[in-house]
């Protein structure tokens, strides 16, 4: 996990990859807690979401979980690989675990409740 990513209390992360461009996914802790991941439903490219809006659904063997947008934004790329092969998320050697890339003009207010990865780790452990 990249140390500069920011995390939500609901286990999503957001990572700046370029100016106003971000990668969004769920944390390694969330993946471990879910266990075998068997289904990932991602939004359509181009769809827009508000902060805290459900943008994806992930299903483990046991249950379905909704995934929330850490900040507002418009989807510019989706990770087709994990949609086709959700079990890749459980593969320790697989690195591209992001769900979507978004374009966002979110201001500081939207970032205010996000945690540094180190703080997040402390919170969940």
């Amino acid at each position: 996990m990249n140390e500069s990513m920011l995390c939500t209390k609901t286990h999503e992360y957001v990572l700046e990859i370029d100016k106003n461009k971000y990668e969004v996914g769920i944390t390694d802790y969330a993946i471990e807690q879910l266990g075998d991941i068997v289904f990932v439903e991602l939004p359509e490219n181009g769809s827009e979401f508000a902060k805290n809006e459900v943008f994806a659904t992930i299903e483990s063997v046991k249950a379905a979980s909704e995934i929330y947008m850490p900040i507002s934004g418009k989807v510019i790329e989706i990770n087709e690989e994990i949609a086709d092969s959700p079990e890749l998320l459980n593969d320790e050697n697989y690195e591209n675990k992001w769900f979507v890339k978004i374009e966002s003009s979110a201001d500081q207010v939207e970032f205010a409740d996000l945690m540094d990865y180190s703080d997040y780790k402390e919170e969940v452990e």
Partner: protein
Amino acid sequence: MTKQTFLHDKHIALGARMVDFAGWNMPVQYSSIIDEHKTVREAAGIFDVSHMGEIIVKGEDSLPFLNKLVPQDIAKLVDKKAVYCQMTNKNGGIIDDLIIYKLEEQKYLVIANASRIDDDLNWMVRNKIGFDVTIVNESHNFSLLAVQGPKACDLIRSLGVNVLPEFFMIKREELFYINVWISRTGYTGEDGVEILVRNEFSEYLWDKLLEAGKSFGIKPIGLGARDTLRLEASLHLYGNDLDEDTTPVEAGLSWSVSKTKTEDYNGKSVIEEQLKNGGRKKLIGLKMLDKGIARHGYDVYYENEKIGVITSGGISPCRGDNIALAYIKPLDNLTVGSTIQVMIREKLHNAEIVKRPFVTKHNKV
């Protein structure tokens, strides 16, 4: 307060993830639900199911008493033979689904669901007026270990049990110098046994079975895989697929209703009427055609009209697709092969009605 089985420390030591289930803190998985599932289909798995209830019914009237409680005919049981059945209320609704063993004349062992023990005992006591029976809840004295899978019986034989009980029979045996009851039963669709042991020996027996089972590929299995295994085998889960508003006929369990028993039993008039004319709803098996997992509580549609609800659903690790059990209105034009829809996150997903069980059972039903 959440209860723990006598094997709780063993589960923690094995790295299990624990969850609360029916008032018990139980292992849901040790490694991965899918791996554990496949281990049981291909080799052998050991389960701690000590949360299940054990009730002894004994006394002169134990047979007529039990025959009043369930639609099965308990009179047909020979010594050490078991039968799957349901305890029904006056409307034929299922209070619990049970396995009843005849241990000897006038003495029966009833295996009940953890979540239902109190209701079962209350109902039994309410029904015991006029019967000379004693009902003893032994649940807190016994642990129950299930050893299931194609290698399970070989493992038990390797421990010196030369003659295993036949399917749905129980036997008094000695394992590692401990007295146990071994029954040829399970909840996975695989061959295997369930071992009833007094609590004080359960940790010792668990360790010994894991050790001796190594060469058979045995692994500890959690409730997560227990659920996917029983779903593939289309075995009902009380609280999901069975409840007090569902009769054995509606649940597809007419095979476990005696057609010859002459005695009256609770709910008989409703159940006999439904045997002739069908129930208000019926249980079906579904396989998802569209991508998506049907889960407990999701609505089922046909021609844009709600016709039922999913009661159990998930992935089938062995088939590699998504399967479900649902109750639907009994419509004549819907049969195996028909396409209906499941509402998943506000979108209709196609599903096909398929035969149950979803995976061929390897035990001798």
